């Protein structure tokens, strides 16, 4: 469940030593350990298909999602594990989804790219780059239409900004915003690359925030490796969006420490040095240090968190391993809700 925003000012206005910050650090460490575990299981062949991990970008998921309220909805791309965990999805159910098991958040039918946990506000997990931005804009309209005080959050990558559905979604969001009918927060997860193509090579304008002006949608660039900065912007802008029903954008400048997907081993598009240098700005280390300096968080405290996270991740793997495959009959469920003759099996379903 998304953490309710605390009374008396935002988390950032308060002493950054509020207990919530330790929770956020713990969450980011959990995401890291979970992703490391999922990469290991992929290498072992326990996880199939495409696997895109969030290692290095944790602050972008945690900094925004911890600022949300119950009833807010989140849409994202295929790099979606962190978003589910930040929203409070059961790590066991998330890992089970990656394993394609019945206990997975999407019943094992969606997999890594299609995590859904609607009860917690996660409306997916989409695999066509940019395709989900239109859905998020529509969801924002619906929330206002239903007179709810909630907002829609839409994460997408730098590379998604060049496809038509991005453009159509943002122009419509800008138009609806004029009527106060689009309480949406768009988050550019600018990790510098679309797969192997750098921002300079895929976007005619490299200041991605500036591109939002074409839609009359204000945008802020924040340091995506500093969760305090991300959360600070989130608290401020989300309050405005709830109030005004107008969309806003945050460009979180971040970096992906792992390959684009688990199959991206060679990474000919970037140098080892570049990656190493970027790793010196690890969002977890940055927060951990700040909490150390300002709030006396000790190595021992962090060690405990780490052990807990490692255990949760290991437990999730064990749970996923041991849980059952979907029943063969599941092949035919969830195709449509109703109407007409039920699908007949072409081939015998053992």
């Amino acid at each position, binding site marked *: 469940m998304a953490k309710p925003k605390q009374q008396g000012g935002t988390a950032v206005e308060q002493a950054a030593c509020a207990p919530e910050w330790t929770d956020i650090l713990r969450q980011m460490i959990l995401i890291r350990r979970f992703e490391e575990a999922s990469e290991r299981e992929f290498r072992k062949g326990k996880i199939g298909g495409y696997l895109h991990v969030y290692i290095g970008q944790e602050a972008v998921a945690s900094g925004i999602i911890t600022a949300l309220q119950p009833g807010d909805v989140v849409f994202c791309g295929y790099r979606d594990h962190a978003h589910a965990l930040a929203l409070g999805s059961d790590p066991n159910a998330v890992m089970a989804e990656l394993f394609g098991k019945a206990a997975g*958040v999407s019943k094992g039918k969606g997999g890594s790219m299609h995590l859904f946990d609607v009860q917690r506000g996660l409306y997916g*997990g989409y695999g066509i780059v940019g395709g989900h931005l239109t859905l*998020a804009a*529509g*969801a924002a*309209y619906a929330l206002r239409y239903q007179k709810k005080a909630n907002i829609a959050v839409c994460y997408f990558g730098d590379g998604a900004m060049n496809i038509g*559905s991005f453009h159509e979604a943002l122009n419509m969001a800008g138009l609806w915003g004029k009527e106060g009918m689009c309480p949406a927060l768009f988050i550019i997860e600018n990790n510098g690359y679309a797969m192997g193509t750098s921002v300079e090579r895929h976007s005619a304008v490299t200041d991605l925030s500036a591109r939002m002006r074409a839609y009359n949608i204000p945008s802020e660039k924040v340091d995506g490796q500093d969760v305090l900065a991300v959360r600070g912007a989130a608290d401020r802008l989300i309050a405005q969006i709830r109030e005004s029903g107008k969309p806003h954008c945050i460009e979180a400048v971040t970096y992906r420490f792992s390959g684009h997907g688990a199959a991206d081993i060679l990474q000919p598009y970037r140098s080892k040095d570049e990656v190493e240098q970027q790793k010196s700005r690890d969002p977890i280390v940055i927060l951990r240090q700040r909490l150390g300096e300002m709030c006396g968080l000790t190595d021992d405290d962090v060690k405990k968190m780490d052990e807990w996270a490692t255990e949760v991740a290991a437990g999730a793997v064990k749970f996923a391993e041991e849980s059952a495959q979907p029943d063969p009959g599941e092949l035919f469920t969830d195709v*449509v809700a109703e109407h007409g003759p039920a699908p007949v099996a072409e081939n015998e379903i053992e």
Partner: protein
Amino acid sequence: MAEKSYRDAIRDAMMEEMDRDPNVLIMGEDIGVYEGTFRITAGMLKKYGPRRVIDTPIAEAGMVGTAVGMAMLGLRPIVEMMTINFSIVAADQILNHAAKVRYFSGGQVDVPVVIRGPHGAGVQLSAQHSQSFESFYAHFPGLHVVAPGTPADAKGLLKTAIRGKDPVVFLESAALYGMKGEVPDDPDFTVPFGVSRVAREGRDVTIVSFSRMMQLSLAVADKLSRDEGIECEVIDLRTLRPLDMQPAYASVQKTHRAIVVQEQWKPFGAGAEIAASITETLFDELDAPVIRVTGEDVPMPYARNLELLATPHEQHIERAVKKVMYRE
């Protein structure tokens, strides 16, 4: 029962459902202030206001995608495509999003989106504006594909679409908008998906069709009955997905002869599925191969004389009927 045009039946269905359920809204290009290029939405903006009758920019993918998002959150958007030709600009949103999100979410969301608009050949609209996409949409599980051929079915099927939980591609025949027919007044009159009907009874040849070609088939059937005593049974499929072939099968078991009539290109068209299903199921019942009457396999030309040659007409249906009767 009242006499209504196919156009008014569609408008009535939408307005009755908007009166009934505040979650129903409609979006599209020039449906509000302009009142619709085919005037299907005339009067709706005035009655329901701009929040429920949304004029959109020219952005079909945006229209469909935002509608899917609205639907996932509990609204029931109707998306009007000015003509169905423009829906392929939104093909990814329809086929990869609307049609699949229920499945890959493990059934966590409903997607009650209706995508409707005129399809088929008009009069000299040329290649980009004269198409029918039933076979390509009906190939995709997760969608419903509807093609009414009468005012009553237009109203009843559209209401089923709007009240449902799934994405529906609702194909209207522009050529039938002006056609009049009896339409039940009951505000809860609906026509279920996946139920084909016998549009005309006959003992000699089964004609399977839908939308405008079904009407053309009826005209041919009457003519053949009058002039030559040939009695055709006409099956109106009404929905292509789900596809109910039972009435067609029952008919062929009686007539032992069938033809299929479809407006557009033959290769990989809707007629192929229908013909293949009949043969697969009733091979031993057939006294003749199932013949397909289709349009010519070319992009639609602009010149009227060529356009008329590109689409099937009564005489082509008539010839096919006689062919399966070995009467030519």
